[in-house]
């Protein structure tokens, strides 16, 4: 499966193809690889601790305030780590909020600082312009459809793909970078009472603290969906070669090796 899909999705470099492909050129630069894996660690920590925090109150509201005396917008049908929350389950989970909250914020700092390094890098080196903003031929709906059709027919990838991204990848990465991450940071900060004192508009613009919490939950969900799609695509494109590229930077096995 993986050898087949690797040839399908990720053709081995053949000399004479235009543009010339140099196997020595890293597919991912050291900064991209480092920030990618730091983000993986921080995101996983944020996800686990975030789930633990939700378990202490698996009810969501809209507006400024909400509690067990208020009708929720929706509730998750899971047990809770607090006996004050009516869940319908006859037991209470152990309280994990202490370390979960500490890990959540420490990981958020790690993610923020990693993101700053990454943003400076992509702006400074032209990676943003070259590989992330849609290239001239990728700025139409047709370009998106072409990629989707290519995926659906499991057709070979374009020649440029071993060292750049297609229209759909660029849109997804840009959306995560400049829409979902800023939103998840904003909605998260809007839950901080001290930050709200300093910047009241941060929470008021979202419609209140409980709206911010509910939005934080949905934006996190969108990030998890991206993660699932991303890992699925990596698997389909050849898990080992893509992992090798993101760990060592090398695009593919040198041609002389099988």
């Amino acid at each position, binding site marked *: 499966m993986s050898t087949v899909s690797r040839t399908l999705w990720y053709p081995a470099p053949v000399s004479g193809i235009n543009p010339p492909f140099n196997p020595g050129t890293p597919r991912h630069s050291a900064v991209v690889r480092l920030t990618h894996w730091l983000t993986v660690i921080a995101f996983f920590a944020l996800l686990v601790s975030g789930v633990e925090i939700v378990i202490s109150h698996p009810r969501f509201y809209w507006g400024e305030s909400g*509690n067990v005396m208020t009708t929720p917008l929706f509730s998750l049908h899971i047990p809770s780590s607090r006996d004050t929350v009516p869940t319908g389950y006859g037991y209470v989970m152990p309280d994990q909020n*202490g370390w979960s*909250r500490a890990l959540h914020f420490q990981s958020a*700092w790690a993610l923020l600082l990693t993101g700053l390094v990454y943003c400076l890098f992509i702006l400074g080196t032209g990676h943003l312009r070259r590989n992330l903003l849609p290239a001239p031929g990728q700025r139409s709906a047709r370009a998106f459809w072409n990629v989707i059709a290519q995926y659906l027919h499991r057709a070979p990838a374009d020649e440029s793909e071993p060292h750049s991204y297609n229209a759909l990848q660029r849109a997804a990465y840009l959306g995560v970078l400049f829409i979902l991450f800023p939103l998840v940071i904003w909605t998260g900060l809007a*839950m*901080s009472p001290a930050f709200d*004192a300093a910047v009241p508009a941060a929470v008021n613009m979202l419609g209140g*603290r409980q709206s911010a919490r509910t939005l934080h939950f949905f934006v996190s969900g969108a990030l998890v969906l991206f993660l699932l799609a991303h890992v699925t695509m990596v698997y389909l494109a050849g898990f080992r070669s893509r992992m090798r590229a993101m760990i060592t930077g090398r695009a593919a096995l040198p041609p002389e090796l099988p």
Partner: protein
Amino acid sequence: MSQISRRKLITTGVAATAGIGSLAVAARLARRYGLIPPDDGGLYGAGETLNYAAQRLLSSRSLAREFSRGMISKAPFANAVAPPDDHFKRLQAGGFSGWRLAVSGLVARPGLLSLSDLKSLPARTQITEVVCEEGWSYIAEWIGTPLADVLNEVGVLPQARYVAYYSADRNWWDSVDLAEARHPQSLLTWGMNDGDLPVGFGGPLRMRVPRQLGYKSVKYITSLTVTDSLKNLGNGLGAPGAEFGYSWYAGI
């Protein structure tokens, strides 16, 4: 494999040294300007310190949001607390006329204050939100005596840095830095929604620190201690919750 050039090696070395050096300078400056929380050690010390330092720099003077009367929660939620002991019940039967707030530590005039002593000071009324670390919240009107005014009455000594406050249940206590203690919205609260503060919500006297999470708003306050260090109090971490991983600084 690309070769690591000498220039690259030197650049990396210089950058690493500069990075470690500036971290050390930052740590020194942070300590000097009081930006290091008491729970700065351990696995999450870095995060705790960043939270505290960043929010202190960002929000030292800002006011917690206050709301209109129309936004007061129709059904506020009183979190469960341990049932009151006999001593508390006796004070309650007497309309809390025997309730005393003991003020001690680094103050010029330590002493005992009754609720009427507190009420003789200028009162402040504010409609703020109680925000629980679990995620729920409610809005209520809180009426009380600013802690800052009480501190001015007793005269805080110059070396003071923190105020620790204790519940009638002595195992339940917490502390804030002097900036938070002197903040105009930090309130020794004795009234709620136009009436006396109900026992379920911490009556007769509750500390309200609206710029931090609800767990800093300790119920049934019986004493305050002004101190220059939290190391000598209880576990030395500034609050019993710190032992279970709960941050001392709860602005986030």
